[in-house]
């Protein structure tokens, strides 16, 4: 009799990791299919519907193109911080802060057209940067764990945006939810409702990848991130690098908020981030520390999120859809871990 067992391997090849990830997604889809069949739906028909709706029509592809913009940037934000060994759980808050600052410029600065957009972009990045400044300094000078500080500041940013959008900056005679008046400066769309934020996000990811791989600074950042003691051994200004990298991380998330305002939503309102900051953490996990990987991970994430919306229009309840997308994301994330295992046969 042969007996099958799982064995854990200490290291894994990229091919195995990719294979495991595909396997994990396939597994998630099978489980999702079983759930769907269980609630009385036809999983194959639904699957086909999801694929044709999101990939088979320009409407669907545009939706993906739009959704992927903030996901690339928040994912990149988290990934950049990871390079130096910091966990930016606060991309959500920096996103809000960036949206807030960009809106302030868009609403009140006496700039016109393109200049207003430039001003909003600078303000957005600066807003995100300011939002991570305290966690960065606290980590650099007092060794305060950035996980908690960045997370806590999320709530502050969310409340700040709620306050201004429902009170100080609220559009009088506003509708169901409170929001600011529409901001005049808008990023032009180049493909359906997809705006120029998409190429900006992709270029930024490529630029970060280049900076990390092909500059002296990038080398030092990777080194400190991998082993802080080695930074000390080499006499690298680890503290300055840490602060710089965290500020860049915050600025990228802030820029994501600006693009969402100027390209997609056009008003500052509560809930503007749609959890993109937290989803960025997932994107970063999927991207495994690669800035270019972020682009693909964000695309996958956008596809999964969009599939969730398509499934809802097919009469699935929100909770079922949440369960399915959650399952897929979860299994995809542990795909790497799965790649450490292989099946062996016991001879006995």
């Amino acid at each position, binding site marked *: 009799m042969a007996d099958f067992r799982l064995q854990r391997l200490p290291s894994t090849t990229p091919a195995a990791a990719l294979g495991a990830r595909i396997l994990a997604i396939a597994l998630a889809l099978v489980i999702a299919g079983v759930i769907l069949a269980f609630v009385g739906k036809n999983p194959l028909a639904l699957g086909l519907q999801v694929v044709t709706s999101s990939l088979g029509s320009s*409407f669907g592809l545009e939706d993906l193109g739009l959704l992927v913009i903030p996901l690339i940037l928040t994912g990149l934000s988290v990934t950049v911080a990871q390079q130096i060994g910091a966990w930016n759980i606060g991309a959500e808050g920096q996103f809000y802060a960036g949206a807030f600052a960009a809106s302030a410029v868009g609403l009140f600065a006496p700039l016109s057209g393109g200049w207003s957009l430039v001003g909003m972009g600078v303000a957005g990045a600066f807003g995100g940067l300011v939002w991570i400044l305290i966690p960065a300094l606290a980590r650099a000078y007092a060794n305060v764990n950035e996980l908690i500080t960045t997370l806590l500041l999320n709530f502050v940013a969310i409340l700040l945006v709620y306050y201004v959008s429902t009170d100080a900056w*609220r559009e009088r005679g506003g509708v*169901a939810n*409170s929001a600011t008046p*529409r901001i005049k400066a808008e990023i032009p769309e180049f493909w359906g409702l997809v705006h120029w934020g998409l190429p900006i996000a992709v270029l930024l990811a490529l630029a970060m990848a280049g900076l990390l791989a092909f500059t002296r600074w990038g080398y030092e950042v990777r080194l400190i991130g991998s082993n802080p003691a080695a930074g000390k051994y080499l006499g690298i200004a680890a503290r300055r690098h840490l602060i710089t990298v965290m500020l860049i991380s915050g600025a990228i998330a802030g820029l994501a908020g600006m693009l969402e305002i100027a390209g997609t939503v056009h008003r500052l*309102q509560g809930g503007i981030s749609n959890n993109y900051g937290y989803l960025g953490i997932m994107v970063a996990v999927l991207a495994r520390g690669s800035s270019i990987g972020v682009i693909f991970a964000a695309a996958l994430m956008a596809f999964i999120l969009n599939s969730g*919306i398509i499934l809802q*229009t097919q*009469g699935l309840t*929100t909770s079922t859809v949440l369960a399915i997308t959650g399952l897929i994301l979860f299994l995809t994330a542990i795909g790497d871990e799965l790649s450490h295992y292989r099946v062996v046969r016991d001879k006995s």
Partner: protein
Amino acid sequence: MIDLRSLSRRGFLNMAAAGSASLALPGLVRSASAATALPAVNEKNAVIGFGHVGPVTDEGWTWSHHQGVLAVKEKFPNLKKVLEVENVPYSADATRTYRQFVSEGANMIFDTSSTGDFLHEVVRRAKDTAFMECNGHVLMDNLGWYYLAHWYPTYVLGVAAGHLSKSGKLGYVASFPVASVYTSTNAFLMGARTVNPSATCQTITINSWFDPQAAAQAGTALIDNGCDFLFGIMDEAAYLQVAEKRGVWAAMWNTDIRRYGPSSYVSSIIIDFKEYYVEQVRKRLAGEWTPTESLFAMGAGVDRDAWGEKVPADVGKAADAVRTKILGGWSPFVGELKDSKGAVRLAKGQKMSEMDLYNWDWSVEGVTGL
């Protein structure tokens, strides 16, 4: 702007038992003059979509709209598809949801909780689809809106509150400082002040339409502040349960949910979209649909619920007398009105139009917290 109460008066005549009054068509504000009707669709090929803000099981706002969806399905059993999505967030995800409706061939889409620009983004790119936005403000060639003139039954509840509240301190659990909340708080206090001129209305905003925990906390805080009558716009019953426990009065929104607090329950703003939805779909299928703006009149889609079991009969009677007076064409919303800072906002004798009421964005004197 046309004052529409004259047009919708026939709703008043059909005053039926409270809570099930919706025999007549609601009041039309105006229609987009230039728009031509979209071509007719065969029922067998027609796809109708509904997007809701909450879950259909909320026993409140979304449940009420869902009853409308069921009525449409019953009336038009051969529709190709009826798409219904719950929990559509007020974000770019709303755009994605409605775009998906369009991708699936929707001929008509109802946004039952105004997602504003997020919806309009889709409306502009789907010229062959008819859109209706509940609590909307914008009319386009293929977009209309509808809402309820809830301020009349609210005023009636206010009168009852004036009688029932001993402290004269009324509490209000609000979602966001938006027009419907301004109108609701103002109408409520104005009704109460006809009985108790020194009554006040304290408001707490919880930034959600559906957050039982926050609503319960707000209710508790209001009672702790001396309020002995709670009202609010919530899609669930949390503050009613608080009122029941603390022994104060409460009035609600959307549906009859007295079983959550039978001895505290005073009444509710009852809403009903069934006939309106059936009629809109019929028009769309028949090729008669053009974008319109509608405010349901009291008795025609919105009303007060039957009085609670502990409400003294004479209180109910006094409030109903006011209700009858309104149904007869009288408007309580006449100047002089001062805002919460004491400035006169409406001159003596001046009457607020329906659209003024719909877009109210300031608090009358005595309302605090917005």
